[in-house]
């Protein structure tokens, strides 16, 4: 369940313009700058799936809008068969639960997926990337932290040199199919 009403509102605005609005921020990292530049480039060329594929759907919470891209069809279907279909929509798991991260991810994924879709040079079946895996992991914890607190790092202090990142168990190592029925093993075991 997303409970982010404000985000929803901003979104409507954006949808009506049909274009994403990227607000430059000092907190944006170089990738984003690159993103903005590439976007400029493509805007120049003129043909770009972002508009054609209803790019703004990236900004919506309705899973059917993800299915605007047929390559997402299977993911929507398996989500419908999953244990979470009545409690979480795509964005609950695939967008960070904090404001900035949310918009950065939307822009980032929205752009690159549209680009990939246009160029057709993506793996099929699609393979989730590490950065998006961090997003799903954090989403699980965000909803379930009370229940799973024993799985969280014993301490976040500097008492151990062990990388904090290696210190948390990956949820999808065991629960590979919560968002997508039949999602056989993950991966997800981020072993390092």
């Amino acid at each position: 369940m997303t409970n982010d009403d404000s985000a929803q509102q901003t979104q409507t605005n954006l949808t009506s313009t049909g274009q994403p609005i990227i607000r430059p921020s000092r907190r944006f990292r170089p990738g984003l700058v690159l993103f903005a530049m590439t976007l400029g480039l493509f805007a120049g060329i003129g043909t770009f799936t972002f508009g054609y594929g209803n790019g703004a759907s990236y900004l919506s919470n309705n899973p059917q809008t993800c299915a605007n891209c047929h390559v997402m069809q299977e993911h929507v279907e398996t989500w419908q068969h999953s244990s979470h279909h009545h409690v979480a929509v795509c964005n609950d798991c695939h967008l960070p639960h904090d404001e900035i991260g949310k918009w950065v991810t939307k822009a980032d994924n929205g752009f690159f997926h549209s680009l990939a879709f246009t160029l057709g040079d993506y793996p099929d079946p699609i393979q989730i990337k590490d950065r998006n895996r961090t997003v799903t992991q954090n989403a699980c914890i965000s909803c379930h932290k009370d229940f799973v607190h024993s799985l969280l790092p014993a301490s976040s202090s500097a008492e151990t040199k062990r990388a904090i990142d290696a210190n948390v168990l990956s949820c999808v190592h065991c629960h590979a199919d919560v968002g997508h029925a039949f999602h056989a093993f993950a991966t997800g075991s981020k072993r390092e």
Partner: protein
Amino acid sequence: VNIFERKQEARTTFTKVVDVDETSSDPEPWGRNFPVQYESYLKTADSTRTEYGGNHALPPSKLEQDPWLKRLFAGYAFSIDYREARGHAFMLNDQEVTKRVTDVQQAGACLHCHASIIPTYRRIGLEQQGIDPTPAVLAKNFNQEAVMAGFEAVSRMKYEVVYAELLQTPDGTDQAEAEDPHLGHAHPVSCVDCHDPKTMQIRVTRPGFIQGIAKLATSDDPLPHLPSIQKWRDSESDEPYDPNLLASRQEMRSFVCGQCHVEYYCANKMTLTLPWSNGLKMEDLEKEWDETAFPEGGEFYDYVHKETGTKVYKAQHPEFELWSQGIHARAGVSCSDCHMPYEKQGATKYSSHWVRSPMLNINRACQTCHKVPESELQARVDIIQNRTRDQMDRAAVAMTDMLDAILQVQQNGATEEQLEPIRALQKKAMWRLDYISSENSKGFHADQEAVRVLGESIDYSRQAQAAAYKLDLK
């Protein structure tokens, strides 16, 4: 690291009811802080068993189930008494009462894996360093240096002597009383063996493992299932690989078990040793033993096989090593994932400390990952284990045929020179058969590898048999 990566939230701190420290080898006070884990830990005294078992005062004897084991171990303590494993609660008791200990003189190193012995190592280590091991000093911190020193000091001492030392170490609850000379009780594996009493983080404490894994890190065995070792190798650090600092949590969830469920040498000719300097494969371990000489001189061996007089090696429970060759390790599945699965209690989940066969708990141990019916998972395991079993029986027949052939040529006057190459084959054959039969998963931990090793055992047994016939001494 990028902008999306939020700071990991730490575990909600627990309500400490009592303080525990580095001497708290008695689990009871820990149990007051962590009642669910403690209750499940206590269940290891339950002894329900799977197919390969029953319900007995002492677990069933493997020697009776597989009489060929008596010939395999002829002349060694294992031929007197060798039983199935059972729950952790029994480990100390089962060691005390085995005829291997009551009828044979054993070394103190036996307790390394059967008792909560670290505080005792620390105490003796401190004494050796000239420091007074007061309860406060003992309790203060882990003090790896002192622990290692104590371990080296007692490893080759007599079993009874070291056992008595256990009772001279405070265990966090007992108070010395006038009539009772004990300072503490002896406990089987306990919380302090796997957890840091301050943070509750899991850790490894066993000197044998700490040395073993450091040796392993310097080997060139690939080890894709232990990525922190590869990182350490890449860093070209001068410090030895230290699992407590470098291993990921998922690796630690197997390392805590690898402290004990491993092949070892443990007798009085040399300190307890895990033979990992060449890697974790069966051949790597064998190579280390082949290259080892006893400190007092003479090439390494475990026992002289009584029927034939051949010096051979004894393999013990190489679970960690065999698991390392399997698909689960490769996929990042740890021992704890299957043997200590999460359970739900009320609003939280916890790790079951009822360490036992996952086949008694298929639902939690397997079905989170494998969405197939229990009966189907059971059937898959049965197929793997039965196939291993068949090949093991075949290897056992080959082994006994070999012994008969050797005995015959010995009776007919074979010379030592003639026997030498045959003994070499015999040693390889017996090591391989023992390796898989003493591993406790009946092949499950790495199914193809288990059967491969048995196939080699058959090859060497039959080669030895053929070589004996070829001597033409019937």
